[in-house]
C-alpha cells in the first residue's frame, strides 16, 4: 500500500521522548536511597532473627521500622523491575518473547511488592494476626 505521508510527517515524533534525564535521575535517587535503607534492613534481619512471632510483630509495628520497611520494599521492587527490564531488553530480541517477559517482570515485581507492603501495613496497624 502506498503511503501518502510526507517524509517530514513520517519522521515527526520518532526522536527523544524528552524525559530521559528525569528517568535517569530517578534511577540514581532510588539507587542511592537504597544504600542506607538496605544496610538498615540487614541489621533489621539480624534483629528479627532473635525475635519470636510476638517480638517480630512489635518490631514491625514501631512507626520508624514500619516506614523504613515500606520504603525499602517499595524502592527495591521498583529498582529490580528496572534492572530486570534492562536484562530482558539486552538478551531477548524476539518481539513476542520480549513482550511476554517484560509483562511477566512487571507482574512478578508488582504483585509480590504490593503484597509485601500491604502485609507490613496490616501488621503495623493491626498488631499481627493472633
Amino acid at each position, binding site marked *: 500500500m502506498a503511503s501518502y505521508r510526507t517524509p517530514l510527517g513520517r519522521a515527526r515524533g520518532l526522536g527523544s521522548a524528552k524525559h530521559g534525564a528525569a528517568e535517569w535521575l530517578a534511577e540514581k535517587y532510588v539507587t542511592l536511597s*537504597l544504600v542506607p535503607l538496605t544496610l538498615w534492613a540487614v541489621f533489621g534481619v*539480624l534483629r528479627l532473627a*532473635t525475635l519470636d512471632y510476638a517480638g517480630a510483630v512489635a518490631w514491625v509495628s514501631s512507626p520508624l521500622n514500619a516506614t523504613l520497611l515500606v520504603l525499602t520494599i517499595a524502592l527495591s*521492587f521498583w529498582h529490580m523491575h528496572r534492572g530486570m527490564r534492562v*536484562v530482558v531488553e539486552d538478551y531477548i530480541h524476539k518481539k513476542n518473547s520480549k513482550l511476554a517477559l517484560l509483562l511477566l517482570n512487571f507482574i512478578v515485581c508488582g504483585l*509480590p511488592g504490593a*503484597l509485601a507492603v500491604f*502485609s507490613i501495613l496490616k501488621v503495623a496497624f493491626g498488631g*499481627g494476626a493472633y
Partner: protein
Amino acid sequence: MSEARIRERPTSPHLTVWRWHITMAASILHRVTGVGLYLGALIVAAWAVALASGPEAYADFRGLIGSPLGKLVLFGMTLSFFYHLASGVRHAVWDLGYGLKVRSANALAMASFAFAIAASLAVWVIAFVTGVL
C-alpha cells in the same frame, strides 16, 4: 539481495574473543547478583506475608529459612547483596566522573569484591555470636 540475506553477516566481537579481566568479571557479577537478589526480594515478600498471616505461617517460614538449604541460600544472598551494593556505589562514582582510568577501575572492582566478602563474613559472625545460627 537474497544472497546477502542468506550469507552469514559479520558480527562484532563478543565474550569469547576477550581475555578475562577484572572489570569484565565485576560487570558480569553485578548483573548476576542483581538477578539473584530478584529472588531474594521475593523471599522478603514471603516473610512479610507470613508475618501478616499469623504465628503458624511465620513458624513455617522460619523453619524453611532456618534449614541448612535455607541458610545456604541466605549466605548466597548476603554475598550477592554486599557485592551488588559495593558495585552500585562503584557505578555512582563513575557517574560523578571519577575512577574511570584503567588502574582506578581495576582498584574499584577489587575493592567491591573485598568488601562483599568481608561484610558477608562480618554479618554471619554477628549472627553466630548473637546466637541466631
